[in-house]
């Protein structure tokens, strides 16, 4: 497990560093935009998934998967390593996102909103975690090509939700989005905290279960 975890980081940092830095900057911009508009935070989360997928693309082209059967890592180790790597990547990004947002609101105090500040790291970790929890078993059972299709479909779905929330930017008192959001924002975010923590824990649990499922599925895959 440790081997694959490190391997993925080495490929990201050693091989794709330029892309990584670039995408991180873009992702952080979206996170910062999220201070003003929730859609930004969600989108940065989706962005993270794309970065990991870029790396998967390299794996796919290199026939690493067949080779890894001959390595002392095991199918379970490969799955665990990959899940661990992904969530560590999301977490690392979230830390950067918080810093970026704090800096941003320090320079632009008019955008300071504790709710948004709390929501940002939550979205940047848990949106991609949730997406991967739902889609990674497809990757391990059916391969990268099928996974990519499913992922894009889900992207559309989340994009749709993002668009839903985007609606509130339009100055239209009667849009559904604005009424939902005004409901949320009228509530004290800190009283919602236990719910938020519960959802976060649920997402983590789902991620863990997804890992177990992927392990089981991957063991049965024949090349």
């Amino acid at each position, binding site marked *: 497990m*440790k*081997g*694959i975890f*490190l*391997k993925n980081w*080495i*490929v990201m940092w*050693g*091989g*794709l560093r330029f892309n990584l830095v670039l995408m991180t900057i873009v992702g952080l911009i979206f996170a910062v935009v999220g201070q003003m508009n929730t859609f930004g935070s969600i989108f940065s989360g989706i962005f993270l998934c794309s970065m990991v997928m870029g*790396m998967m693309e*390299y*794996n796919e*082209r*290199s*026939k*690493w998967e*067949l*080779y890894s*059967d*001959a*390595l*002392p*890592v*095991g199918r379970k*180790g490969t799955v665990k390593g990959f899940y661990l790597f992904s969530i560590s990547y999301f977490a690392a990004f979230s830390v950067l996102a918080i810093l970026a947002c704090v800096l941003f609101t320090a320079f632009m105090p008019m955008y300071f909103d504790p709710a948004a500040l709390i929501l940002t790291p939550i979205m940047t970790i848990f949106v991609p975690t949730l997406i991967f929890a739902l889609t990674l078993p497809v990757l391990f059972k059916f391969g990268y090509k099928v996974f990519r299709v499913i992922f894009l479909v889900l992207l559309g779905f989340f994009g749709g939700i993002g668009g839903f929330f985007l609606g509130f930017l339009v100055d239209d008192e009667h849009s559904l989005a604005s009424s939902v959001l005004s409901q949320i924002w009228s509530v004290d975010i800190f009283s919602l905290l236990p719910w938020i923590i519960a959802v976060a824990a649920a997402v983590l649990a789902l991620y863990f279960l997804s890992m177990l499922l992927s392990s089981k599925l991957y063991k049965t895959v*024949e*090349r």
Partner: protein
Amino acid sequence: MKNAIEIRNLSKEFKGFTLNNISLELPSGCIMGLIGENGAGKSTIIKLIFNSIKRSGGSIEVLGCDNLDKDFEKVKNEIGVVLDEPCFPECVRLKDINAMMKSIYKNWSSDEFFAYCDKFGLPRDKRFKGFSKGMKMKTSIAVAMSHGARLLVLDEATSGLDPIIRDEILDVFNDFTRDENHSVLISSHIISDLEKICDYIAFIHKGSLRFCEEKDALLDKYLLIHCTDEDLKKLQHSQIVGYKRSRYETEALVKNGSLPSGIISEKPCIEDIMLFMSKESV
């Protein structure tokens, strides 16, 4: 231990192809060549050794460990593998490969790895994408040789390479077996590569094992003859392995034994044996 690889009654069924009851033994300290036409089942056997595909029947033991055993993952630390396609992500450099394999193999030696890279003339600054096919293959070989392996499994590791590089690479495998605890299983359809250094040859044809023998004993068993059609008819049916008619002569592979006088005979090479055995009917 006695055998580096022990395969008994191995079989695997696919739609349209069956690997049928294969039994092989690779004694420790030896080099075994696996030959056969494309699609004969050589790569299938290697995939079965690593459990990339599940066998339908039989057993496989590698370095004394059943390959379905939990401990087999640890045993893989002692198996060096080179597959026919280079298998590292294109965006990495040699030092990244070193870092990756270090965290994967228990007995990885960075010094040995870079020594091989230098010996093979591999560029340290280029990304894997920029390597030629020969360089990519050499990288895989450098990796296989740098983690204290006792067994090398090579699947068409020299296909697509020019003769000069192939010669260099065969030297590396030859040297690997100077230690009597080191063994090599090499599958190839370039038989001339195998002819010199192999101790054993196993011939897979359409999913079945035609023979697995000591190379010298094998070559002593047969004769290649050039004769006329009438001469061929004079021979015992059971003596003829296969024949090929051309405009000016008939060529045949026969079992070594007494021949009617006047027939020109010579020692066959392994490729001759394989070609004539593949002919369908006598």
